[in-house]
C-alpha cells in the first residue's frame, strides 16, 4: 500500500515538473508579446501626448499585466526621485526582470540596447529606435512560439514518462 502511494506521489511530481516547463514556454511568448505591445504604447505616448517618461511608464503599467506591468511600475517609482543616469536605472530593473520573468538573455539584451537610446533623441529618431526594437522582439517572439509548438506537448509527456520509468525501476 505504501509502495502504491509513493509511486503515485512520484509520478505526480514528475508530471508536475513537465507541466511547469511547458507553462514557462507559454509564459515567455506571452511576456514577449506584452513587451512589444508596451513598446508600441510608449511610441504612441511619446509621439502624441508628450508626457514625461514617468507618466508614460505609469500609463503603460496600467495597460499591461504580469511581470511587464511591475517592471514599468518599478521604473516609474524610481523616476519619482531625481535621476542623473537613466541607463543604469533601466539596466538595474532589467537584471531584476531577468530573475523574475522567463525572458532569455537575448531578449534582455535587446531591451537593454533600447534603454541606451531612450530619451536621447528627437521624436523621429526615437520612433525609429522603437520600431527596430519591436522588430527584434518580434523575431524573438516568432522563435518562442516556434519552440512552444515544438516542445509544449512533448515536455508534458516526457515528465510523466520519466516518473513512470523511475517508479518501474525502483519498484
Amino acid at each position: 500500500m505504501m509502495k502504491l502511494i509513493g509511486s503515485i506521489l512520484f509520478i505526480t511530481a514528475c508530471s508536475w515538473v513537465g507541466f511547469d516547463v511547458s507553462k514557462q514556454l507559454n509564459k515567455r511568448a506571452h511576456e514577449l508579446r506584452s513587451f512589444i505591445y508596451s513598446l508600441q504604447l510608449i511610441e504612441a505616448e511619446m509621439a502624441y501626448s508628450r508626457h514625461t517618461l514617468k507618466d508614460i511608464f505609469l500609463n503603460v503599467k496600467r495597460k499591461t499585466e504580469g511581470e511587464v506591468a511591475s517592471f514599468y511600475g518599478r521604473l516609474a517609482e524610481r523616476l519619482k526621485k531625481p535621476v542623473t543616469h537613466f541607463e543604469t536605472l533601466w539596466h538595474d530593473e532589467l537584471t531584476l526582470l531577468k530573475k523574475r520573468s522567463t525572458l532569455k538573455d537575448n531578449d534582455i539584451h535587446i531591451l537593454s540596447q533600447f534603454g541606451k537610446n531612450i530619451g536621447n533623441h528627437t521624436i523621429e529618431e526615437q520612433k525609429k529606435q522603437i520600431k527596430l526594437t519591436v522588430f527584434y522582439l518580434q523575431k524573438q517572439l516568432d522563435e518562442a512560439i516556434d519552440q512552444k509548438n515544438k516542445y509544449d506537448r512533448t515536455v508534458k509527456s516526457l515528465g510523466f514518462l520519466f516518473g513512470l520509468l523511475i517508479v518501474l525501476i525502483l519498484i
Partner: protein
Amino acid sequence: MLIDTAILFQIAGIGIVTALIHTILKQMGKEDVAQFISLVGFAIVLIIVINHLSQLFQQIKSVFMLQG
C-alpha cells in the same frame, strides 16, 4: 512464483516506457539524448537480469551440491 511474474512485468514496463521516451525525444530532434536513454534503459534491465541469473546459478550449484 508471484515474484517471477512481477519481475517480468517490471522489465516489460521499463522496455515500453524507454521506447516511448526514445520516440518522443526523436520527435523533438534530440536523437543523441534518445540513444542515450535507450542505452540507460538497456543497462538497467541488464543489471536486473544479471542479478537474477546469478541467483539462478547459485541455486543450481546448491541443487547439485557443487559448493566450493
